């Protein structure tokens, strides 16, 4: 039985030597993020979840594949928790968000933290207003969203630019490296250009080791030198989705 899994996990499995031996149809240099691996190749795959998206479509297969090491597989990478701690240490007290999988830890921790305000939005543009208002009142906030939401914010970025408001967005990317959903591509490929057209500085992160230094720099550029900054958490960092 073959199940789809993400490109990065497939690479790990390949490096462990299990994939070619099992004779699956897998081309390491294929542009698609999704490859099919034998269900057996996922057994005992302790680090599977580190790569964010195993992308097992078949519920039953997913259950079988994930059962052996479930507790370790759900642990996830370390950077999201460290990122939350960094934001709090820098005085961020407002977390405005439209949910995305890439922001799961930040959202959950802000909801559980009585010392910050967690603000679910109906659309990303609301976050631009709420952060500007927070700045008027002397509070620091961050906006969490998926790249699709950038399109919803464009006209509101006039407020940021006209008022020279410090403004920090963390954007989890869709429609870039290894994207499997064609409808995600137009906005994903335009995200950085749209932001830059509105005067927002963009910093892309591809490796987990770069998350904290990059966000730390972004915090300084936002709250010390008064810029609008977007940190783009790419699909190389987060893992691509096949759907």
């Amino acid at each position, binding site marked *: 039985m073959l199940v789809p899994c993400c490109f990065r996990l497939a690479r790990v499995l390949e490096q462990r030597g299990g994939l070619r031996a099992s004779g699956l149809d897998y081309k390491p240099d294929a542009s698609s993020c999704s490859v099919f691996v034998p269900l057996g190749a996922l057994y005992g795959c302790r680090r599977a979840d580190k790569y964010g998206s195993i992308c097992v479509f078949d519920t039953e297969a997913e259950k079988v594949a994930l059962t052996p090491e479930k507790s370790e597989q759900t642990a996830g990478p370390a950077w999201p928790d460290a990122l939350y701690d960094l934001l709090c240490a820098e005085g961020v007290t407002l977390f405005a968000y439209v949910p995305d999988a890439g922001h799961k830890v930040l959202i959950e921790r802000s909801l559980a933290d009585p010392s910050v305000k967690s603000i679910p939005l109906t659309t990303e543009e*609301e976050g631009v*207003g709420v952060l500007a208002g927070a*700045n008027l009142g002397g509070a620091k906030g961050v906006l969490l969203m998926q790249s699709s939401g950038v399109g919803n914010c464009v006209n509101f970025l006039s407020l940021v630019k006209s008022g020279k408001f410090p403004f920090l967005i963390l954007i989890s990317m869709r429609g870039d490296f290894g994207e499997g959903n064609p409808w995600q591509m137009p906005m994903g490929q335009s995200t950085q250009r749209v932001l830059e057209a509105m005067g927002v500085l963009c910093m892309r992160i591809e490796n987990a080791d770069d998350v904290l230094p990059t966000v730390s720099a972004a915090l300084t550029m936002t709250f010390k030198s008064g810029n609008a900054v977007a940190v783009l958490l790419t699909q190389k960092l987060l893992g691509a989705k096949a759907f």
Partner: protein
Amino acid sequence: MQTRFKKLDRRDAVARILKQRREALLITGLGSSCWDAAAAGDSDTNFYVWGGMGGAAMIGLGLAIAQPLRRVLVITGDGEMLMGLGALATIAVQRPKNLSVIVLDNERYGETGMQATHTHYGVDLAGMAACAGFPLTATINSNKALTEFIPQLYEANGPVFCSVKVDDAKLPMVLPERDGTWLKSRFRKAVVGSLD
């Protein structure tokens, strides 16, 4: 839609509301509501919004959260509020006690040729705010009702939503300062005490 009452004068309504503001902070919408606030008298704690239509209530929410001990008023128009209706849901979820959103509802897009807005066809903004979860909402149809409701804008546990039905007279523009950075810095200096 025919109305059975004489609608309020918007400048007079805003002047009466702001006359009792004391320490309250003000965010305006763009267009007529901005000119109305300017006509009532400038203040360091007025932030005039000249663009970003649909965002006034959310700016008010961010400010209300950052300054929980100060009353925050948002005075905007029906067209501006309609463009950001999701804000009613977002504000209701946060339930800031110190936020009052006031919509001057002339049922028109005043700056673009007086085209009818959705409220002209019966959309009930106060009803939408109530359904979203605002604990206190009102639609004001008379000067007497406004007089009675004004204290609630400053004292009631919010968020408060109030739609004031105003006439569609085209009034002379009273333009406040239009430099956003200057307005922001002035506001922050008055409220936060620093520019950092």
